[in-house]
């Protein structure tokens, strides 16, 4: 557990389910603020880009709150969770039902979010699945290869140069991505029991 009370700001994207991430950090003893204020986000020790919802609605909300520029210029550790991770790359195939337009994302690192191709398997990919650590990183300190995390998604970023950990469902995809100060996880660490708590604690120590 971090010795001093780390200040975490969860970006209020205007979408749902911000509470579970907030509670998870509070369980670790962090001081958590939920905000859509540019000042507050910029001054936080650690920033969370949370994650339930659909990419078009989320990007529309972030744009409406004029947060794109702010997020792109953050220099402290930023963790994107689930949809939040997907928003970190260049663009997403996810669109409103019946539309086929790509959704431009935050472009914090290259990458494209695509509908998962899983053959006979079911979508969404929902439930507990195992990760393989691709690149050693403090984010996964103390977390063993093959640990189970909770996933809920139908879109994913393929395994590529920014992949920290992968997961296999139909084919390998990015379970975690990283570039500079930006980290993203496709799974929900706040809902991934002990392994998830370990990852969040690791993030606070970065």
């Amino acid at each position, binding site marked *: 557990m971090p010795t001093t009370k780390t200040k975490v700001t969860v970006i209020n994207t205007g979408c749902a389910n911000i509470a579970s991430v907030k509670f998870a950090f509070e369980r670790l003893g962090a001081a958590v603020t939920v905000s859509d204020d540019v000042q507050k986000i910029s001054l936080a020790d650690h920033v969370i880009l949370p994650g339930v*919802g659909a990419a078009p609605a989320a990007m529309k909300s972030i744009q409406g709150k004029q947060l794109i520029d702010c997020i792109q210029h953050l220099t402290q550790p930023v963790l994107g969770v689930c949809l939040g991770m997907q928003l970190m790359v260049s663009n997403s195939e996810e669109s409103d039902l019946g539309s086929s337009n790509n959704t431009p994302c935050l472009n914090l690192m290259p990458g494209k979010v695509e509908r998962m191709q899983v053959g006979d398997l079911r979508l969404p990919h929902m439930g*507990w699945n195992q990760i393989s650590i691709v690149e050693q990183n403090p984010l996964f300190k103390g977390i063993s290869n093959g640990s189970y995390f909770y996933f809920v998604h139908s879109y994913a970023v393929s395994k590529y140069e920014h992949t920290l950990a992968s997961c296999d469902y139909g084919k390998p995809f990015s379970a975690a991505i990283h570039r500079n100060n930006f980290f993203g996880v496709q799974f929900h660490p706040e809902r991934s029991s002990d392994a998830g708590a370990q990852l969040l604690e690791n993030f606070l120590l970065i």
Partner: protein
Amino acid sequence: MLARRLIPCLDVRDGVVVKGVKFRNHEIIGDIVPLAQKYAEAGADELVFYDITASSDKRVVDKSWVSKIAQVIDIPFCVAGGIKTVEDAGLILEMGADKISINSPALANPELITALYNTYGQQCVVVGIDSFYNEASGNYEVYQFTGDEKRTQKTQWQTVDWVQEVQKRGAGEIVLNCMNQDGVRKGYDIEQLIKVRAACDVPLIASGGAGETQHFKDVFEQADVDGALAASVFHKGIIEIPVLKQWLREQQITMRN
């Protein structure tokens, strides 16, 4: 490998966990938060909370317990009951639920499924289906308002047709509750679940009938469901989750460790 899920279901009525037999004669099991915490610690993969009074009563139901659960547990949970609008769903998700499940309101207004899909994403839209096997006709029939004996009614839908319809409209997961089996612990309705599985491309959760460890093995192996939901066997301590998971693992069923 994606693990099969064990899902204790907590029926909530007036802020406490209850359980009835065949949807009737509800008895109080205990307080919500300590029970949720107990199951999370025991290794449950997910929890479902059904506010069983909500869909049938017109009153506004106090959902502050959702937030209390989200504060203490670190596994996913779904809230069902009384969610009739996109705004209702938004409130529940904001309080920290991971998914919301709609049943009677989806039957009354199928458009709601698509509206939820477009606002929150498919992954948090669960559709619960109460299916009754009509022995006389040999049909599986979808029922509505099953939380209230006086209002429970048959709908126009045959189960497999409704399963296909809700997927078209954007459901991300289906919980099939086989009413004939509910609470009687004679095993899941494998025959029905196989039929529904064949028509279901999203995750399918079996509900109703779990009574012994063998039933879980059967439903995973034979009906290929993604998760098995159960209530009384867990609440009454007939089956302990860690013991069940270990046994299923020995039977080559993929379980989270």
